[in-house]
């Protein structure tokens, strides 16, 4: 559901598989130079194999680039550790948005959960609260190849473990990535509308709005038909039909205005306070003046595909857009796009959203140590992950990774991490997100008034969290 759903041709998938298989094979022999401390895990992977045959089940959600990478790593791990079998399943039904989380939860309840699976950051508090995840204890640290919790934390950027840490300070997951938004635009379409992507300066969302209106006015036949109806969007925000995408988009704007969904104590909603209203107002302005949210793709993955195929001019997407959407599909956008510094509400205040998935271990797993060792191996080669998958692991100094240097606009993208915040934390995240998403959709597609809608939403959230 989250990250980068997209279209992957069979050929591209095969290539990814081959490439990552090579990466997997080489990295355990010669750990990558970057992400120095993380690489110790890779060498641990090849060390003593556990006694007796061990079978680990591993569930992942349906994101082919990373799934293929993981499959290759799993194969390499099995070779390096005779007696270990990894049963990997990367497309867990059921379906529909949130389907993966639902199935994880119910499988935990029925005792059919796998040994290893992934949890997305905003869902972490709720899943941790079920008491079914194994905390990273001393044994886990050894298996992962770290001397202490501090060493583990020091191996990643500050705050990388926040979403997966409970009130007692226990850590439950190894994040595979901390993703964040970037603005990507199609150069050809900007030029057709009379805007030069190389020289245009976009500091704020209002600058972006002005640019969009100029491009639409300069190339009206592309965006609207003879009777004035929209046929293509200049931009459609990735916030429809999926709760977490919706919260990501909202959080990015909230981070820039200083607004929030919940008050600091988590006991009431602040979504109808001025800072939040300003953020939502801007989202609606962008959505309704630079396109028609009723047309075009709906689920976020389709929206990214639309940008990659040139059906939509600009799009908000994670840092993985190049690696997951453009490169493997050989998109016609390759070499024809610009990644901009993320526009701001006010030029001097940076703000962005952080989200990402973490590998976690089932507390009921009889082979937790092997599982952690395997996770350590999965995350041991940040450069390989950037190169083969496109997502950016939360390692320090990511700009020094060769794969980031090879990513077009890598420096612009890296700078966009500034001011990032995680999506709000609440045990009632699912209920709140679903509620807000529905109303964001209504405001965007039907133009229902922002302030009064948010007043109602705040009231309903208060009922949920009280």
């Amino acid at each position, binding site marked *: 559901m989250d990250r980068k759903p997209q279209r992957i041709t069979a050929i591209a998938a095969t290539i990814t598989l081959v490439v990552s298989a090579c990466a997997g094979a080489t990295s355990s022999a010669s750990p990558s130079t970057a992400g120095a401390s993380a690489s110790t895990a890779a060498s641990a992977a090849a060390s003593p194999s556990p006694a007796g045959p061990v079978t680990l089940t591993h569930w992942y959600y349906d994101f082919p680039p990373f799934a293929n990478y993981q499959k290759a790593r799993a194969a390499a791990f099995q070779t390096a550790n005779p007696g270990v079998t990894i049963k990997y399943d990367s497309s867990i039904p059921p*379906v*529909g*948005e*949130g389907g993966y989380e*639902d199935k994880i*939860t*119910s499988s*935990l*309840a*029925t005792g059919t959960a796998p040994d290893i699976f992934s949890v997305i950051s905003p869902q972490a508090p709720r899943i941790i609260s*079920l*008491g*079914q995840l194994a905390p990273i204890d001393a044994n886990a640290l050894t298996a992962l190849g770290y001397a202490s919790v501090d060493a583990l934390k020091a191996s990643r950027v500050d705050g990388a473990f926040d979403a997966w840490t409970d009130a007692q300070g226990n850590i439950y997951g190894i994040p595979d990535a901390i993703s964040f938004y970037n603005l990507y635009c199609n150069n050809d379409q900007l030029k057709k509308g009379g805007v030069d992507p190389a020289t245009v300066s976009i500091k704020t969302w209002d600058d972006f709005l002005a640019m969009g209106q100029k491009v639409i006015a300069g190339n009206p036949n592309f965006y609207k038909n003879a009777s004035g*109806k929209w*046929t293509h969007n200049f931009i459609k925000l990735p916030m*429809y*039909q999926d709760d977490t995408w919706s919260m990501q988009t909202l959080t990015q704007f909230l981070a820039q205005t200083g607004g929030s969904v919940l008050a600091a104590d988590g006991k009431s909603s602040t979504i109808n306070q001025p800072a939040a209203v300003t953020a939502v107002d801007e989202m609606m302005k962008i959505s309704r003046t630079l396109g*028609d*949210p*009723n*047309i*075009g793709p*709906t689920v976020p993955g389709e929206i990214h595909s639309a940008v990659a195929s040139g059906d939509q001019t600009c799009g908000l997407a994670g840092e993985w857009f190049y690696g997951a959407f453009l490169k493997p599909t050989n998109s016609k956008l390759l070499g024809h796009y610009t990644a901009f510094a993320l526009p701001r509400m006010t030029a001097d205040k940076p703000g962005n959203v952080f989200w990402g998935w973490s590998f976690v271990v089932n507390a009921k797993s009889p082979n937790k140590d092997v599982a952690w060792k395997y996770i350590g191996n999965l995350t041991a080669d940040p450069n390989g992950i950037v190169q083969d998958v496109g997502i950016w692991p939360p390692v320090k100094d990511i700009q020094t990774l060769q794969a980031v240097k090879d990513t077009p606009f890598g420096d612009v993208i890296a700078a966009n991490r500034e001011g990032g915040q995680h999506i709000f934390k609440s045990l009632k995240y*699912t*209920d709140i997100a679903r509620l807000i*998403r*529905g*109303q964001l*959709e*209504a405001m965007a*597609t*039907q133009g229902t008034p922002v302030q009064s809608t948010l007043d109602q939403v705040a009231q309903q959230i208060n009922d949920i969290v009280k």
Partner: protein
Amino acid sequence: MAVDTARARSKLLGLSLPRRGGPATNESTGLLFTLPIIFLFVAFNLLPTVYAFVVSLTTYNLFTPPTFVGFENYLDLLGNRNFWQAVGVTVGYTLLFGPASWILGFLIAMLLKDTIVGRDLFRSVFFVPTILSSVAMAVTWALLLRLNGPINGVLDISVPWLTNTQTALLGISLLGIWQSAGWFMVIFLAGLASIPESLTEAARIDGAGTLALLRHITLPLLRPVFAVVVVQTIVAGLRVFSPMFIMTGGGPANSTRSVAMLIYQEGLRDLRMGSAAAISVIGFVFILALTVIYFRVFRVREEIGY
């Protein structure tokens, strides 16, 4: 159903007469033969209905043991806007897809009643949508109903069928109509065939026009068929799940979340088993009432010949 009731009944009646003579049989062997499937019904239909009521009196999230809360879940539902919205969606869907497909089905049945070129082919064409995989159809209809999709394209309109709270339920109902009109057509055709030719001939000789014939002969005689159709429609409305789940995910803003989908989300997504069970029990009581009425109205006991 009224088809050949008379014939069937006489046949059944003949069979249910006590057997005279014949070799002695161990009649309880019959019970033995029915037991395997009865066992499945008890284990997977009857037991769950009872169990639903038990669970509905608790709060239970699968992880911590259930706690007894009496009728609290039911009381909570009274004030739960999600519940009432789902009831509204279910009723709305039933009213949107039901009457429209009855009328279409009836119209087609009237047109196909008498011999016409390609009668069987037409009947097959109208019936085929009812048997196609409903999931595959939901997925593809979501594409058909896009704003820039072929339905809007052919009609030269731009209705945001599935992305607008005002039209999403209507959009889903279009699929419902398409998939059930043929079903009702078949039922109406059977009903129409059961009306004796002599009756309509006599009325025609008396000078009755087509409309008068419809009003005074056909419709009244079809009354039991209409009742069947209404019951089937109500049950179909209460069952509706996959079109919403797939085409809109219940959105936008829950405007297409049916009762069945709410039960699923409450129970298997949010792990509020008690609350989900309470909604189920309400649905069950509703179905039970419907069944009792149905059995009464149709004298099912006589129908089956006991």
